């Protein structure tokens, strides 16, 4: 059974329709990226999953319980966007408190802080931490216990590139142990390699829910090919391929994905006239904007 089931979830704030009929599930061990423009409804969806705000319609089941049920809260970890802590406490004191609140041994605190690279700053007050260091405290508390579902709202915001990589490696480990992960992000490239499925919200509606490869296929965006001609052959190449010349020796071609092989055959036929060929698939940004432009009425 999926760890998270959302079915026709709807939430309205006054006139703002923050979520409209959103349905998807997250299985154990699955890593889902929740994407969408600012205000698309990502944080709202997460708060509903945690039981922090009520919803107007549809259904949400978290580990077989209602959102916010104590049974669910025991096994769900949350990292809010813009996570904050009391500035007077040290990182160590804060994590010790969170450990005790989850019924875990407070002595594990140092190990957790070490895992997020905060061991050296552990005994300093959080008020003196940088943004990224506060974010790491937030990550450390989300790793407490053995959560079966992690809900992480822009977890890598404020993290440096190396910490991001370490963070995703940690997530991989948790997912391998069967935890479900639902994370939102605006950093598309890191999501690309590190998640199993992508859910895109657009103005509260779900416009995509599939793996990146499937989304690529569904979108059927044009593929770009750059053909570099040998000296003096550029015009001839451009003419025979029907592309636009660009940068002197390069010819640019755009075509639908199903034409890829035909086009390549054409290029190889030109043989000696060609110096190099580069095929550029649609970027993740292209795919993302293709889907997030779609809005249901």
């Amino acid at each position, binding site marked *: 059974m999926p760890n998270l089931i959302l079915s026709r979830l709807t939430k309205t704030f006054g006139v703002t329709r923050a979520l409209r009929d959103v349905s998807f599930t997250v299985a154990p061990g699955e890593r889902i990226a929740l994407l969408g423009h600012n205000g698309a409804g990502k944080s709202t969806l997460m708060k509903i999953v945690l039981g*922090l705000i009520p919803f107007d319609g549809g259904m949400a089941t978290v580990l077989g319980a209602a959102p916010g049920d104590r049974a669910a*809260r025991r096994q*769900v970890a949350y990292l*809010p966007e813009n996570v904050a802590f009391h500035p007077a406490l040290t990182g160590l004191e804060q994590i010790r408190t969170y450990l005790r*609140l989850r019924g875990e041994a407070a002595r594990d605190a140092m190990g957790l802080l070490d895992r997020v690279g905060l061991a050296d700053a552990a005994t300093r007050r959080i008020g003196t931490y940088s943004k990224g260091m506060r974010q790491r405290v937030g990550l450390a508390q989300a790793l407490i216990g053995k959560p079966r579902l992690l809900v992480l709202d822009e977890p890598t915001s404020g993290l440096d590139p190396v910490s991001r990589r370490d963070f995703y490696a940690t997530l991989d480990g948790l997912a391998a142990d069967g935890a479900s992960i639902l994370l939102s992000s605006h950093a598309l490239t890191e999501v690309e390699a590190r998640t199993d499925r992508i859910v895109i919200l657009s103005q509260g509606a779900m416009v995509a829910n599939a793996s990146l490869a499937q989304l690529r296929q569904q979108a059927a965006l044009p593929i770009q090919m750059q053909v570099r001609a040998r000296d003096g052959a550029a015009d001839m190449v451009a003419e025979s391929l029907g592309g636009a010349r660009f940068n002197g020796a390069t010819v640019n071609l755009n075509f639908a994905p199903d034409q890829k092989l035909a086009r390549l055959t054409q290029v190889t036929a030109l043989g000696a006239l060609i110096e190099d060929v580069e095929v550029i698939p649609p970027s993740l940004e292209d795919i993302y904007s293709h889907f997030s432009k779609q809005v249901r009425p």
Partner: protein
Amino acid sequence: MNAILAISAAEFRIALRNRWVAIAVAMMALFSLVLTGAGSAPTGILGADRLSVTVASLTSLAVYLVPLVALLMSFDAIAGEVERGTLPLMLTYPLGRVEILLGNFIAHMLTLTLAVAIGYGLAAGVAIWADPRASAGVPAMVRLFWTSLILGAAFVAIGYAISVIARRPGAAAGLAIAIWLVLIVLYDLGLLAAVVTDDGGRFTTEIFPWLLVGNPADAFRLYNLSASDATAAAAGVGAAAHAIPPAYALASILLWPLLGLGLAVLAFRKVTS
């Protein structure tokens, strides 16, 4: 239970590092010492021992100061978490809202106990050092101590209710000051005006005592003064203090913390994110 204690431990640390709390402790200590010094004059006249006189003065002081210090510590409890944005995360942990409030309560009561003990301890120390007969006043002092804590508990709890309802520290602070003014200052003035206008009528004899005992601060004053003749004599309110059975006054001050906590819990249940 472990969760409650975890919150208490964190909140107690925070309280000790909060300059408001330091100011509160200093204020208690300072006022207590000033009063002890000022209280030395009437000793001979009334024939009461020095500590009883001190207790009488401290009782008058505590009525104002203890609620103020209690509100000062508690008004920020929930509103501050909302403002900092730390509350949503806390609410996703597997603990109840009652436990969050109780955790805060233990920590703040501990802090208050510290402040009151330092203040009264200094005052009592001076009195006992200056007057060999002062041991006669020890029971009154002990009573003042624990009733002050219960009075404080009432206002800590009221402070939580304010904190939850106001949602923002600024609004909570304003509301706390307003409540303090009304319950501690204006309430008595109002009653006094009513009694004067009534001129010994039914209001004065039948309604007034209940209104008086219903206010936690007045109940606190009544209980401490009625329980000790020496103290009451020193305070010059012997007759008034005996009009209401001390048990009623005690019941009132014991009930108020429960009332305040109940209200805070009810309001807190309604808070979403």
